[in-house]
């Protein structure tokens, strides 16, 4: 099941950093990165999530699957959508949720990540959802927590944001069908700082996408981006020409030190998605954005709110995808420890 061809080494994470995601039966135990997961597992996540979307449309939006489980959200970086949808997902599965606000926690008194994890583990946590500014933080946690605990990566540094990638895959599948092989996807904007783009590219390739294009100025592209299996474009109109899906990324001003761009206005003029530039994509193209959106910086308001935009569907799908990943990972850990037998 592990794709051996995809073995790129990341010195921060080690050779086999994805193997710890699977248990001995090849089932999902942690969800840290898309790398190393086969299309069967990604499809299983999407099918399970599709089932949960129907729960989210009911009057009573709650099922008893994870009753008695405790899920701890550990967010070392700011987040609105991701943290709240992880929280809602856990609550809709009937789990108890702890939200640790790092700025008011003992971390600000100097406690290490490992000590924080061990203390929360001593409170019988079954799952950690971790967002951290350092690449590899979620892997580090997965290596050190007790064997019955699952770890979900809610974004680590510039590395990965796998649940975001999967909610994007679900949104594309709902709009464009299950067969991705004839689709053209353009990812536009700050690829350099974007863990979302990296995870999207891995997921799209695993699901056998026809064509992935990345569109950005040279200063916002990593040096070896072609190795991920994408076509690089520096011009927006050419890059999104005949695209079925246009994914806009946020300009990550908080991560930019140094003069990467002349000005926001010039960026908008060259790379901003407007109702005029969108005409280069297919007439039925969908417009996506992981949020938060900067109106007038990477996307024109009327496009973000327009008929082709599925930005708010992405948010709803985020709950279903996170429910799917939570129930799949905690399902396998229960199998391993054999509790309740």
């Amino acid at each position, binding site marked *: 099941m592990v794709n051996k061809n995809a073995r790129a080494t990341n010195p921060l994470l080690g050779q086999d950093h994805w193997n710890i995601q699977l248990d001995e039966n090849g089932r999902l135990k942690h969800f840290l990165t898309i790398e190393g997961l086969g299309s069967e597992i990604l499809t299983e996540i999407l099918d399970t999530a599709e089932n949960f979307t129907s729960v989210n449309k009911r009057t009573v939006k*709650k099922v008893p*699957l994870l009753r008695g489980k405790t899920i701890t959200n550990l967010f070392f970086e700011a987040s609105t959508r991701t943290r709240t949808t992880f929280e809602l997902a856990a609550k809709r599965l009937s789990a108890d949720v702890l939200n640790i606000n790092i700025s008011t926690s003992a971390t600000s008194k100097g406690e290490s990540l490992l000590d924080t994890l061990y203390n929360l583990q001593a409170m019988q946590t079954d799952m950690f959802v971790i967002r951290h500014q350092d690449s590899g933080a979620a892997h580090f946690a997965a290596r050190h927590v007790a064997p019955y605990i699952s770890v979900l990566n809610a974004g680590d540094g510039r590395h990965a944001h796998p649940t975001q990638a999967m909610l994007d895959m679900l949104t594309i599948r709902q709009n464009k069908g299950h067969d991705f092989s004839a689709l053209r996807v353009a990812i536009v904007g700050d690829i350099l700082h974007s863990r979302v783009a990296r995870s999207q590219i891995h997921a799209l390739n695993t699901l056998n996408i026809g064509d992935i294009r990345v569109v950005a100025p040279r200063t916002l592209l990593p040096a070896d981006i072609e190795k991920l299996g994408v076509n690089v474009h520096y011009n927006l109109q050419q890059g999104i020409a005949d695209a079925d899906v246009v994914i806009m990324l946020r300009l990550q001003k908080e991560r930019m030190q140094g003069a990467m761009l002349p000005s926001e206005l010039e960026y908008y003029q060259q790379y901003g998605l407007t109702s005029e530039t969108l005409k280069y994509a297919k007439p039925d193209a969908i417009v996506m954005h992981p949020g938060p959106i900067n109106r007038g910086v990477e996307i024109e308001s009327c496009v973000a709110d327009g008929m082709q935009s599925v930005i708010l569907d992405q948010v709803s799908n985020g709950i279903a995808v996170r429910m799917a990943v939570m129930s799949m990972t905690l*399902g396998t850990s229960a199998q391993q420890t054999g509790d309740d037998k």
Partner: protein
Amino acid sequence: MTKIHSPDTLIQSLSSQLSESLAQKQITDPVMVGIHTGGAWVAEQLHKKLKLKEPLATLNISFYRDDFSRIGVHPQVTPSTLPNEIENRHIILVDDVLQTGRTIRAAMNELFDYGRPASITLVCLLERDGRELPIRADIVGQQLTLRDDEQVKLTGPEPLAFDIKHVTLD
């Protein structure tokens, strides 16, 4: 072992028992709900035979199972499809084989998350021994006693047939 009648014969019998029971209880517009997957096949045929007005509903109980912590989540591609309003409606719940009663427990829990039905009538093609919960069927095609290591399953949807297997007990 007793001979099992064909599913078609049993569905015919369920249909006549059910219409008699509905007439007796003066229920005119029930909601028929089939449990995925076998129950939904049976419900589809019953729904046709009884010419019910309300569209057939289906229930996928995988999020309500009580063995999740042992076997994990096994999604089916088909989610539940229930009418928006089951408050005060008369429900006919249909399953293929009633054995432990745990499926029916899960199904009733899910139904109550949609609303408070006026009544639930349980219809099962086969009722075999091995009950673990105080649940019984109101309308049964055939009763059956099997050995502990025997398992009966409905296969389908076209044609419907019974499959009896020997299982290894742990």
